């Protein structure tokens, strides 16, 4: 009898729990069980009662599981989408959205940025810093709990393994939006030298910021530092924004209709049915309306999936292992060695720490991830030094006479000889492995939806350009939105968003093509091709105009390579 009652309760829970109220159902179960415990506290138990006891003890867990599963399934499948109700739980809501308690959940925003990562927050900061857009009402949807906290960085932490190389163009963008000063308060490392060579030992290329009349080639910053800087900046400013700590489950945008039916529901739902607003539904049950939805939610973008934007791309049969290591001496130079299975990059973080990004085949990556720390360090040193091939000696091909007439008297780092990278002595973080792929969205914009950052394009990390392309997208999109508001356009109009696409797509595609070309060129070990690569290295090293344009392009100052 007791068992039947409990099953009935679970069935009721299953029926009744909508998208929310998980807690409620388990709490109800808990209370239910408490009452039963008080009744059934008998020392002698028959087998049947023991079984009942077992069922009873597992019910809270079962109900929670059922509630979670039921909640998500029920919400997505069983409840048909109803335009006029904000809450899908049938027992509580009335079909109209005039219900004041539920109606207050759905708010209207001008822009909803889905994904509060570096690029999403950079867009929010950029909108807040422009006079034409700082009055906009912005919602940031991200389930990352760190966004709700301030100052989640402790100064004494070891450097995180997830870092990004920030190009000078991005540094100036972050300075424009006034967020760079926050980054400078935390750990960051400018570097002005870079050395690239490969395993064949035929040649090398050294880049110095002086060659292109710059101070730095870039700055290596931990991702969490960037995130917290942008977050604190956005929170400091007098900018209307609300962070929704939840994940996006569904998004609906209706086509434009100009029917003159007067809806008895709220203005927002009326605007939504006319296609003037997009409706976003979140995992925690709330929903919001926005004129424009920005998808900044990373490579596996849910916004892109919901908007039906297709992608082109392929998976590289490579994984990348990243970790933080320590040297015996300070390191201010970025090193990259192209090995047969992929490049190994050592980026200076600060003091004696560096970040390693090692691209290799998936099998190798699982081996390397699981081996001991010492073995891993030995492997890294082996790869950096004499493993796979000899070091290039300066002056194999075209030491000075052949190319001296091209140098044009400008002192360049072509005269620098090959330097041996510093030895890695200690591992300072866990090793993480990620699969690498190339993905590009066919369109960046559709009606009321626009994609920025990794949601629009994913690239190979070999030149550290991925997040910089994303910051470029954020900067371009905020300019386009500002221009649109200047001439009174509705910011969700496709024609305006296509301007952003026309601005960013060529630059992004070019960079992706260049990086993919590098990746393909270095994945083949073929004699003549190796010589060709070596010649290319030499050319880049010795021909200073070429070196200048390579540095300018990689720094983000030029949109297209070689066309100054």
């Amino acid at each position, binding site marked *: 009898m007791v068992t039947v009652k409990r099953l009935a309760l679970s069935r009721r829970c299953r029926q009744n729990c909508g998208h929310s109220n998980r807690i409620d159902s388990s709490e109800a179960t808990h209370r239910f069980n408490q009452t039963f415990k008080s009744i059934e506290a008998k020392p002698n138990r028959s087998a049947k009662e023991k079984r009942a006891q077992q069922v009873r003890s597992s019910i809270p867990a079962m109900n929670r599981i059922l509630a979670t599963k039921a909640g998500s399934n029920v919400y997505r499948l069983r409840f048909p989408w109803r335009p006029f109700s904000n809450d899908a739980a049938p027992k509580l809501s009335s079909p109209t959205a005039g219900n004041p308690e539920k109606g207050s959940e759905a708010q209207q925003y001008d822009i909803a940025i889905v994904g509060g990562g570096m690029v999403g927050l950079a867009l929010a900061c950029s909108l807040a810093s422009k*006079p*034409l857009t700082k009055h906009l009402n912005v919602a940031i949807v991200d389930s990352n709990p760190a966004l709700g906290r301030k100052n989640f960085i402790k100064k004494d932490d070891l450097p995180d393994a997830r870092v990004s190389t920030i190009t000078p163009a991005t540094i100036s963008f972050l300075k424009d939006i006034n967020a760079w000063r926050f980054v400078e308060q935390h750990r960051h490392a400018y570097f002005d030298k870079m050395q690239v060579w490969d395993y064949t030992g035929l040649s090398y290329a050294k880049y110095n910021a002086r060659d292109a009349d710059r101070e730095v080639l870039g700055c290596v910053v931990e991702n969490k530092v960037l995130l917290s800087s942008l977050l604190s900046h956005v929170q400091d400013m007098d900018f209307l924004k609300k962070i929704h700590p939840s994940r996006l489950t569904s998004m609906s945008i209706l086509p434009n209709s*100009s029917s*003159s039916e007067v809806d008895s529901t709220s203005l927002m739902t009326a*605007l939504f049915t006319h296609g003037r607003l997009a409706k976003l539904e979140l995992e925690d049950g709330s929903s919001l309306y926005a004129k424009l939805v920005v998808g900044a939610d990373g490579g596996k973008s849910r916004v892109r999936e919901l908007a039906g934007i297709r992608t082109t791309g392929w998976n590289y049969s490579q994984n990348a292992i990243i970790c933080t290591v320590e040297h015996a001496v300070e390191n201010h130079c970025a090193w990259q060695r192209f090995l047969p299975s992929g490049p190994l990059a050592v980026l200076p973080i600060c003091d004696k720490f560096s970040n390693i990004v090692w691209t290799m085949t998936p099998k190798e990556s699982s081996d390397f991830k699981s081996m001991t720390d010492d073995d891993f360090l030995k492997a890294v040193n082996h790869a950096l030094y004499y493993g796979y091939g000899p070091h290039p000696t300066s002056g194999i091909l075209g030491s000075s006479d052949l190319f001296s007439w091209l140098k044009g008297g400008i002192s360049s780092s072509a005269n620098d000889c090959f330097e041996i990278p510093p030895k890695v002595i200690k591992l300072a973080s866990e090793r993480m492995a990620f699969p690498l792929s190339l993905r590009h969205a066919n369109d960046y914009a559709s009606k009321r939806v626009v994609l920025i950052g990794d949601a629009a394009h994913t690239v190979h990390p070999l030149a550290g350009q991925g997040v910089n392309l994303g910051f470029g997208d954020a900067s371009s999109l905020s300019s386009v939105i500002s*221009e649109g508001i*200047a001439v009174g*356009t509705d910011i969700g109009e496709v*024609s305006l968003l296509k*301007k952003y696409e026309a601005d960013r797509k060529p630059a992004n595609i070019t960079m992706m093509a260049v990086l993919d070309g590098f990746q393909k060129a270095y994945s083949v070990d073929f004699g003549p091709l190796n010589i060709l690569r070596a010649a290319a290295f030499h050319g880049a090293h010795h021909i200073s105009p070429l070196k200048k344009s390579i540095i300018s392009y990689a720094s983000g100052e030029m949109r297209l390579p070689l066309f100054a």
Partner: protein
Amino acid sequence: MASSKLLSHPRWHRLLRRNLPNARLFSGLPSQHPGSVPEPQNHSDPKSNNKFKTASSTPSSLKEAELAKFAAISDTWWDSEGPFKPLHNMNPTRLAFIRSTLCRHFRKDPLSARPFEGLRIIDVGCGGGILSEPLARMGAIVTGIDAVEKNIKIARLHANMDPTTSNIEYYCTTAEKLVDEQRKFDAVIALEVIEHVADSAEFCKSLSALTAHEGATVVSTLNRSMRSYASAIVAAEYLLHWLPKGTHQWSSFLTPEELTMILKRASVDVKEMAGFVFNPITGRWSLSDDISVNYIAFVQPITRNESMLESGEQSKVTRNIGTTSVLGWSTGCKQIILQLDSIEAIEAIMIESCSMYNTLSMTVRAIVQPRLWLV
């Protein structure tokens, strides 16, 4: 004015007209009778399909056919890929000019998101409201008028869908009627209208009468030049099929100096002029100093020392902002040389004169130094 237009037809244009039965013969147009009204067909700016009648006009039987043809596609007003696509494409550029000139004139902050707060603007020939809605979003109190009832209905419906634009007032009326009602507006905007009006002088007088004392007017139209014939008529209508054939009458286009003259007779003065150019590679319009095809003019009421231009007279007109002097006007060879100086440091207006049609008329192009139109 009518005779000069007839004379200025190049001969091969008359040839073309014979071969194309759709094209309306200028001589066939009832505009030679000042009382009646030409019914323009659909064109890049069908919102200018208005019948600006003079007092003694009677609607001809052609009007219903034209109205019906226009009404058939008026549902596609807001379809940005439909027949009104060129207009949608050009819209942001026109708005950039309007925003920059009106902000400067009314001393409004150009960096504000709603700079036209408190300004009463009228959009003459508003069509579906493509211009009125962005103006309302910029904060203005907008009135839109059009002579086609269906356009007004579409415009109202679309504007009601967005709370920021739902306070636009649309009326199916004409400028003259509003003048009779003694309405005044801070800014009067009539884009792509004047080339479809029977009597452009009367129309300009109505525009000027609608403008309040310290207000402004913005007028845009197409230039009557070889290039505009090639682009707006041949390319746009016959080659690219952007516009239905017969949309525009080349002979009813106004050259910038003719427009300036007409406006001067209506006691308003052209202060700034800019052209629109289309970049076929990027597919976008931009403002430039090339006024040979589309151009837009910012016009202010003349505050003092008005003077009408008579043939053979030399007159010098001064006003508080700049100096305008007409150096010579000769009816015999129809040559006009205008010299406009402006003392505002950011503007430089140069005049380039070239002769066309074997000295039958002379086109004067005012070249305005390019400046940042977008703030």
